[in-house]
């Protein structure tokens, strides 16, 4: 995509909105695939993967963290989550972002000097290397596990799993409705910026760009309120009186119990050996 030097924020916003929609579509496609995790009960996946994320957070040994990371990659592979997608969506961004944050810790963390940067007299300490390793590996592992959950479980199933974990029904209902309308608002915003871009001649000055961004956000806000009013009336027309009920059609099969036991054993083992 060619970017204008001064009006680039419109293109970047369009690109961001497009990527969000694409990400949601990829997740839905992958979640309805035929991998190992896709066939499991959503409650097992939410509880199991969350337990592994917590286990990774509790690790105090780098090799144990690396083992949980390898497990996360293996779970992604057997669930047919494309590895290149994991690399593009999780590993590279997390490495760049967290790596940039962790890098100064190499020099700032007090400890035993292991290496000196030539010409700068900065010492990389053993403790600095370890703490940077902890941070990067922990973030990569947790983010991989989170994406495995997103890419193997349709969002409607995640909502039902949350309900099973006693999250208040009204929260679950709001979450569900919000997810549904996010896609609509993303599309609305995308169309708004596309139509503005197609009508633009020349570059806008800084104040004009800010005015455009604020006006777009304002229109989107007004539309959101208008939409919520329409939805409210539709809900009233269908008999909604404030009590939210959700269908609960989840059923545990023998393999789900087996998977739950496996997740519990792996998480417990990770915590045990990693401390």
């Amino acid at each position, binding site marked *: 995509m060619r970017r204008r030097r001064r009006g680039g924020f419109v293109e970047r916003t369009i690109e*961001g909105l497009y990527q969000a929609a694409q990400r949601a579509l990829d997740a839905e496609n992958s979640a309805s695939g035929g991998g190992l995790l896709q066939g499991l009960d959503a409650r097992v996946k939410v509880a199991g993967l969350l337990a592994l994320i917590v286990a990774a957070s509790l690790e*105090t040994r780098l090799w144990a963290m690396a083992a949980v990371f390898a497990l996360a990659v293996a779970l992604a592979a057997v669930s047919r989550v494309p590895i290149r997608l994991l690399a593009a969506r999780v590993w590279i961004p*997390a490495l760049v972002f967290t790596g940039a944050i962790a890098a100064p810790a190499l020099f700032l963390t007090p400890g035993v000097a292991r290496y000196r940067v030539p010409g700068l007299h900065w010492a990389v300490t053993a403790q600095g290397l370890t*703490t940077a390793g902890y941070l990067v590996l922990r973030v990569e592992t947790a983010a991989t596990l*989170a994406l495995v959950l997103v890419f193997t479980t349709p969002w409607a199933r995640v909502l039902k799993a949350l309900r099973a974990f006693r999250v208040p029904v009204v*929260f679950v209902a709001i979450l569900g409705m919000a997810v549904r309308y*996010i896609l609509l608002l993303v599309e609305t915003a995308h169309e708004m910026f596309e139509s503005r871009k197609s009508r633009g001649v020349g570059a806008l000055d800084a104040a004009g760009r800010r005015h455009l961004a*604020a006006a777009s956000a304002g229109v989107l806000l007004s539309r959101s309120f208008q939409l919520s009013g329409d939805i*409210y009336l539709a809900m009233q027309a269908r008999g*909604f009186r404030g009590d939210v009920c959700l269908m609960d059609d989840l059923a545990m099969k023998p393999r789900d119990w087996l998977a739950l036991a496996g997740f519990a054993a792996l998480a417990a083992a990770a915590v045990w050996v990693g401390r």
Partner: protein
Amino acid sequence: MHIPDGYLSPATCAVLYGGATPFWYVALRRVRKALHTRLVPLVSLFAAFSFVIMMFNLPLPGGTTGHAVGIGLAAVVLGPWAAMLAVSIAIAIQALFFGDGGITAIGANCFNMAIAGALVAYAVYRILAGRAAIGSARRAMAAGLAGYVAINVSALLAAIEFGIQPLLYRDAAGAPLYCPYPLSVAIPAMMLGHLTIAGFAELTVSAGVVAFLQRSDPSLLKATAGRGAALAEPAAARSLRPLWAGLGALLVLTPLGILASGSAWGEWMARDFADPAARHEIAAASLSHAAPLHAPEGLARWSQIWTAPFARYAPPYIRSAAFGYLLSAMFGAGLVLLVALAVGRLVGRKEPAV
């Protein structure tokens, strides 16, 4: 601003989930009471809007761009409690359905941005906007400053959460297990980016959208405008101006405090008892009674419990004593105003906002 998994210890995350839960409970009760059957569609749609607004690439002064969280806007349009719910839902959706931000850190992110951010934004907006007319420029500016202050308070909370990690969690060799930077690094590092780029992104979106709504859909601003705002004359709003001007003048004059030398009587620190110069000052101020050779045991022990971020009104990361004094004054005055507002709301009038 969104804390990913891995930066905070599970214990910190659990505490922040615990800290957020009562606010969610109260918010849900208040919003449900106010909106009843409208609760689900209104909060859902605003959560969806908050999610989408976080993707907007905002042009900022200086040619750079940034992303806003939309806390100020949410608090101005919905009021603090509904905003709290909507932004929390948006944060949860990002983590659970899009894999952005941490799942274990949902509580921390909600506490910092949705809860503290919404309360601060609403307080700042109501204080600064006063009873100004719905369409007044002052109201748009108040919304912008509300967003700016709220995002910075959220960032400060996140920085404090980061900064306490190396104090609490280290491995056997002394390497920090989570965020490795102490408060003295985490606070300036976080605040630098938020006082500039992220703060201005929040200011731009809050002030810009409120200005837009004033022209196109002012009814959306009525809920949080206070009683009689639409009818109030600008003169009514001016009544607080002298007070604000006085407070501003006092803040500007605070560096005069540096002119005074030594510590106030009785406000000594544990280390002063080992410092000959400080001991001399203590004796001179105590009718020539010499100070004990060591700090009292209780003082020595309790002084280890808490180190103030702005100790002696001189933040360690600011070289200029005058600016440090001024910053301390602004921080302290802001806290006092927030507490006063909170107490006023607890014991006083009922607001129409939810």
